[in-house]
């Protein structure tokens, strides 16, 4: 039975419940204490040792119900009012004997065991269904039973043995149906695992991700954001000790008769970076913009101030859009809203840089991280690298994210090589993994 429990745990893991080895050991112990005879008790015991949050309890409940649903072989079969003594030969084949005796419990056990031998839990897609059905039936001893049926039929015996053959054929069809259902259920349980798909989405170029995956991507981003938050909030706490707090220490020492027993420390101020994001929203970059923005605005607890500029042929300050609307609405606004004063012609880094220098350079302070997202395809306008240099000198960090893959850098009208020397960090950024790495760096205080 431990094997079955192991399978169940695998199913839970695939459904998104995090289960460690020690927890599975707990589950095994719990199941031993509880026994397997009371379904409800077993469920409660496993729930206590495996599902560790309200959300996980819900997943657990549905998984348990479908995994341990032994509805198989429960179909009301007509009572076998035949004469057992007439089965004769047929009982020699173990499977045939079970079918004739109509021993549902044994049959179910045999089927699950055969399923385990055939490794049915590794089933991934519907194409494999018939293969696994075959394997399980073979494992259960179907060929032997088939042979038996043929033998009885050919023996031209009495009417009774013909009846037995019919009964066996009927039983075989039922069995086939049941195994098919079982495999189908295993497919449902095992194939909708999230892991593999997530991994795939993480490393696919953002520009190639289809719209229908956006929903899943957003979930993924939320997950990554939580991880990043965890990591960074913790780092700040451990580095919390600042200078000696003389006043507090003296006050505390009064209770020890003036001995300075317990030194107390001033707390360091939490260091949250201000971020200025400058995004190219030309078509080639737009997808990456979307996901970067989801990240940055998702992390606004860890980030002090966010200024967002978007540019195409000209540049506008888009911070107010993000402040006023939800992130989803804001994103659709900057991509499609015709009322925005932005000219969607050719991307122009010249105008962007001059505009930024003239109107917004004062925003850049020594606490600011400037993130520029763009492919640096300037349509042969002057590159204005001196403005970038000025920004880089004023700010704490200057990060340039380029959605183009490295071999294309500097080809044609790409000016990225001109800009490169002035950036503290220049990175190719076109998958979710890249993005996560960049945002992680954004949050860590050092350059």
């Amino acid at each position, binding site marked *: 039975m431990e094997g079955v429990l192991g399978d169940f745990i695998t199913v839970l893991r695939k459904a998104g419940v995090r289960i460690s080895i020690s927890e599975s050991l707990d589950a095994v*112990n719990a199941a031993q*204490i509880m026994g397997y005879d009371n379904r409800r008790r077993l469920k409660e015991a496993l729930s*206590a*040792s495996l*599902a560790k*949050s*309200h959300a996980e309890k819900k997943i657990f409940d549905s998984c348990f119900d479908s995994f341990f649903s032994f509805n198989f072989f429960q179909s009301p079969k007509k009572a076998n009012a035949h004469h057992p003594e007439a089965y004769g030969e047929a009982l020699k084949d173990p499977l045939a004997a079970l079918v004739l005796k109509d021993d549902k419990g044994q049959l179910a056990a045999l089927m699950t065991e055969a399923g385990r031998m055939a490794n049915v839990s590794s089933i991934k897609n519907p194409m494999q269904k018939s293969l696994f059905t075959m394997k399980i039936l073979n494992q259960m001893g179907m060929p032997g039973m088939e042979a038996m049926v043929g033998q009885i039929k050919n023996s031209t015996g009495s009417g009774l043995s013909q009846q037995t053959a019919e009964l066996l054929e009927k039983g075989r069809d039922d069995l086939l149906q049941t195994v098919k259902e079982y495999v189908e259920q295993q497919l449902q349980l095992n194939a909708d695992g999230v892991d593999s798909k997530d991994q795939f989405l993480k490393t696919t170029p953002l520009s190639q991700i289809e719209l229908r995956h956006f929903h899943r991507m957003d979930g993924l981003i939320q997950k990554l954001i939580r991880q990043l938050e965890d990591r960074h909030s913790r780092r700040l706490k451990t580095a919390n000790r600042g200078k000696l707090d003389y006043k507090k220490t003296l006050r505390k020492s009064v209770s*020890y008769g003036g001995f300075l027993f317990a030194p107390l420390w001033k707390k360091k101020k939490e260091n949250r970076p201000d971020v200025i994001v400058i995004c190219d929203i030309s078509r080639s970059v737009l997808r990456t913009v979307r996901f970067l923005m989801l990240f940055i605005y998702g992390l606004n607890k860890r980030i002090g101030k966010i200024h967002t500029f978007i540019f195409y042929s000209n540049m506008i300050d888009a911070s107010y859009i993000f402040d006023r609307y939800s992130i989803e609405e804001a994103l659709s606004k900057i991509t499609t809203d015709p009322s925005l004063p932005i000219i969607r012609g050719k991307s122009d880094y010249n105008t962007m840089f001059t505009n930024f220098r003239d109107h917004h350079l004062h925003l850049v302070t020594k606490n600011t991280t400037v993130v520029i997202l763009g492919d640096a395809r300037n349509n042969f306008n002057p590159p204005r690298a001196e403005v970038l240099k000025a920004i880089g000198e004023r700010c704490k960090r200057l990060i340039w994210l380029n959605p183009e893959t490295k071999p294309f850098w500097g080809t044609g009208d790409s000016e990225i090589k001109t800009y490169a020397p002035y950036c503290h960090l220049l990175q190719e950024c076109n998958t979710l993994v890249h993005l996560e790495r960049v945002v992680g760096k954004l949050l860590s205080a050092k350059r």
Partner: protein
Amino acid sequence: MDWKADKFSSVEQVMDGMKAAHYICDSQVATTVYLACNLEKPVLVEGPAGVGKTELAKVVAEYLEAPLIRIQCYEGLDESKALYEWKYGKQLLYTQLLKDKLDTIMHKEDKLADSIEKLHQYDDIFFSPHFLEPRPLLKALEQPDGVVLLIDEIDKADEEFEAFLLEVLSDFQVSIPEIGTIKAVRKPVVFLTSNNARELSEALKRRCLHLYIPFPSAALEREVIKTRLPQIGEKLRKQLVAFIQAVRTLDIRKPPSISETIDWARVLLLMHAESLNRELVGKTLNVILKHEEDIRVAEEKLISLTAEALKADDGMTGE
């Protein structure tokens, strides 16, 4: 084999025992408590405020006839308040008192090195168990007859404290640098409660069994009221539970918990109410709802809510 073995031979026994202590629970709660005692694992209890998480620990203590040691967690709680502290005052006092004694010990040795050598023979006396002030956690481990340890509202404590608890929770021991490792004389039954103010760490969750106590079903809640306030009439009991259950489905900030249901039942009893009516409910709404806007939301729907509650009673008696 264990001090609690005879009280935990089956889930039904636990359930009856808790019922005898006036705590009505569903079988999930009983199963988890039963498992916790048999697997010797802590239980992490989560759920909305006021569903009886803390009460559970108290009742288990009562059932086991063991003392309950409780730590109320708050931000800034650290090991000196939860585990142990050196009795600095006593240490100082003793050093003062023993000054003369020290002089006589040192008396004959006139060289500094010799004095130090001599002192080394007595080195650890000031950091021995005599000068240790045990705080709740250490106390719980030292009890010879076993205890129930309740770590209340763990989510209010800092993450550091959570990490520090891990040793206690998994091995039932603590390490004190100056003395060494202290193991539990008898493994206590440990309950941790959380209101989900923040997500607890995986490491902590891994070491505990997990129990989620939701708002009770109507039947369970009626049972609770019946046990706690047997004087209250059957009719009123059904009505008030139906009313509370309906209020919980409204869109409000803080849905009423069991403790509030009990309070309300008490109030209604004091007012000698036989049955709910709109006026009565309107006057006592502030017992179950603690936010101005919640009360306003409920008042708007008061007529239909009361009517529903009265109908629920009819339906039930008709069955």
